[in-house]
């Protein structure tokens, strides 16, 4: 659905030229400033600049001029470009440039704590990464953590069905179920991970002792620790899937269910043959988005276990975080992040292609 407007843009030659001048002039200024700064940094000039701020300001000036020139040079058409251009410039400057810059960092041996500064070392970091058992373990953990989404999905679907049932106080339950999502993962780490599951005085440890586990230790054993992280992350994000699934459930026309009821289908069959198939597109969208969020998991791991015991609960993000925090190893850390990015993009593309035929509405 697009808007078609006939405009009689009558841009004079002078105006078009002025627009071009604004773009190229400010771009030239940006290049000159960047060049001067680079010369200053490499020692050829001595201006005493301490930061790259001037180049930043030159870029901001260029971006403003680029937007303004659209209207000057293209009139009505330019005003339309102005809707998308600021956001595109913003994302371009903050993502594309750091990514290119990051490739340079990833290909170098750069420890911020060492006095040597940056040393280009080609693909050494890549080789080191695939020989690093802790990194490979973190990658494997991400697979396990992602697999836990299956359980989260079942619980979320169940809760959505319950909330969609004929109940009183629906609003209360909805708000209560939503709250975990609102809480900051760092506060949750303390509230649940460090306080409720504290092995001596925590209420959960008490409960475990009541149930016959004499020396409860929730983050000492690798498997249990991993399950705990999964459970806490699930606690936070189940509401998210639940809300999406609930929206999907409420969009199903009730005629379908009624027709099945008239035909005498049992509720069990009604669920599997009507509700579930109709919910498939929503389910897949919810799971895909959930996977994207899961792949960013770090906060609770950093704050509760710091990846321990022995890296058993590490996610890729928390591992890289410590690589920087403990060892200031910027070059290696960036390479690890880039490997992760490539893996994610490949995996997500495959997943999205594979599920496309269920998520697209039927033609």
């Amino acid at each position, binding site marked *: 659905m697009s808007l078609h407007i006939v405009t009689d843009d009558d841009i004079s030659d002078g105006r078009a030229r002025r627009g071009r001048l604004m773009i190229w002039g400010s771009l030239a200024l940006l290049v000159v400033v960047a060049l001067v700064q680079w010369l200053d940094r490499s020692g050829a000039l001595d201006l005493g600049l301490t930061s790259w701020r001037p180049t930043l300001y030159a870029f901001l000036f260029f971006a403003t001029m680029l937007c303004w020139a659209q209207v000057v040079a293209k009139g009505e058409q330019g005003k339309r470009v102005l809707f998308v251009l600021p956001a595109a410039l913003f994302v371009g400057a903050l993502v594309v440039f750091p990514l290119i810059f990051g490739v340079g960092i990833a290909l170098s041996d750069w420890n911020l704590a060492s006095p040597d500064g940056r040393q280009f070392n080609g693909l050494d970091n890549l080789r080191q990464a695939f020989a690093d058992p802790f990194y490979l373990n973190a990658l494997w953990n991400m697979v396990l953590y992602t697999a836990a989404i299956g359980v989260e999905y079942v619980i979320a679907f169940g809760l959505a069905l319950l909330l969609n049932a004929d109940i009183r106080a629906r609003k209360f339950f909805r708000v209560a179920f939503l709250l975990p999502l609102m809480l900051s993962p760092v506060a949750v780490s303390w509230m649940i991970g460090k*306080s409720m599951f504290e092995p001596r005085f925590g209420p959960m440890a008490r409960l475990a002792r009541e149930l016959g586990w004499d020396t409860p230790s929730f983050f000492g054993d690798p498997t249990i620790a991993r399950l705990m992280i999964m459970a806490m992350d699930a606690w936070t994000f189940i509401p998210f899937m639940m809300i999406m699934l609930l929206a999907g459930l409420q969009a199903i026309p009730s005629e379908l269910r009624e027709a099945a009821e008239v035909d005498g289908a049992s509720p069990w069959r009604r669920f599997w043959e009507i509700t579930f198939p109709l919910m498939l597109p929503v389910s897949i969208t919810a799971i895909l988005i959930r996977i994207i969020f899961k792949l960013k998991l770090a906060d609770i791991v950093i*704050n509760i276990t710091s990846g321990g015991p022995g890296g058993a609960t590490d996610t890729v993000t928390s591992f890289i975080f410590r690589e920087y925090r403990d060892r200031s190893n910027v070059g290696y850390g960036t390479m690890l992040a880039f490997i992760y990015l490539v893996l994610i993009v490949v995996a997500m593309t495959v997943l999205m292609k594979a599920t496309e035929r269920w998520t697209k509405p039927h033609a």
Partner: protein
Amino acid sequence: MTTASDDSQIFHDAPADRAFRPGFVLGKVGIYALLIAWAVVCLFPIYWTVTTSFKAAPDVMQGNLIPYVDFEPKRLGWRALGLSPDTIGQVSTPRQEFLRRFWNSTIISVSASLLAVVLGACAAYGLSRFQYRFGPMRNGDISFFFLSQLILPPVVLALPFLILYRELDMLDSRIGLILLYTLTVLPIVIWIMRDQFAAIPTELEEAAMVDGLGVWGAFLTIILPIALPGMVAAFILSLVLTWNEYFFAALLTSTHANTLPVMVASQTGSQGISWWSMAALSFAAILPLIAIGILLERFIIKGMAAGAVK
């Protein structure tokens, strides 16, 4: 008309209410039991934190749960944070620290969400109404370019940004975090707003333009007011995400621009921190979000449900 299932047939609240009834398996009691059980799972940690903030050491060790019955509430935790009513008049360093972090979090999350909603709403509107060609990229590609940022894990940008901000002298500054946070929530805002604008018929703008408004005039005076609920939803969702963000804040700030999550995290690490003051701090940090969750629940749900139903 004696059984529960017959009874429920009388009340048809809304079509959605009748969509699915697992009643035959579980019965009403079963449904409520499950609902209450899960509500306890969701709410108990919050209850535990609130009560712990009013406990003293013996209460914590004995695992007392119910105030006034099991133990007498004390204000140790809140006094340690400087937020107890009886000592509110005194000068308190922890309180100043807390308020500074709180203020940082507020400024950063509100500015980032506002910026993201402004940039995102414009971009989403443009993409839903006009045909673009930026070089080889057409509308579909531009949309994908924006939405694909969602897949980008923050850790990929973290270290390049660390170096970049160091060179730009922007480490430990609010503006640095604001820009990054805007970037992280922008795809979500565009995702929500695209849905919103697609639902508004183009005849509205056409009528406005016949009346002499320009493209931007029609957008600002006609379309934006209609799309306002969607924008509020996007804003609230961004606010929640940016308020809770920890990873970038921990990497890129040290003393000046610290946000609340960083403060909470730094306290958990230190040895010998008392449970009651930690509980008070955690609860004070999540309180604004609990308030938002209870008061603005429908906007949050609206935001998250966008795109779920096509």
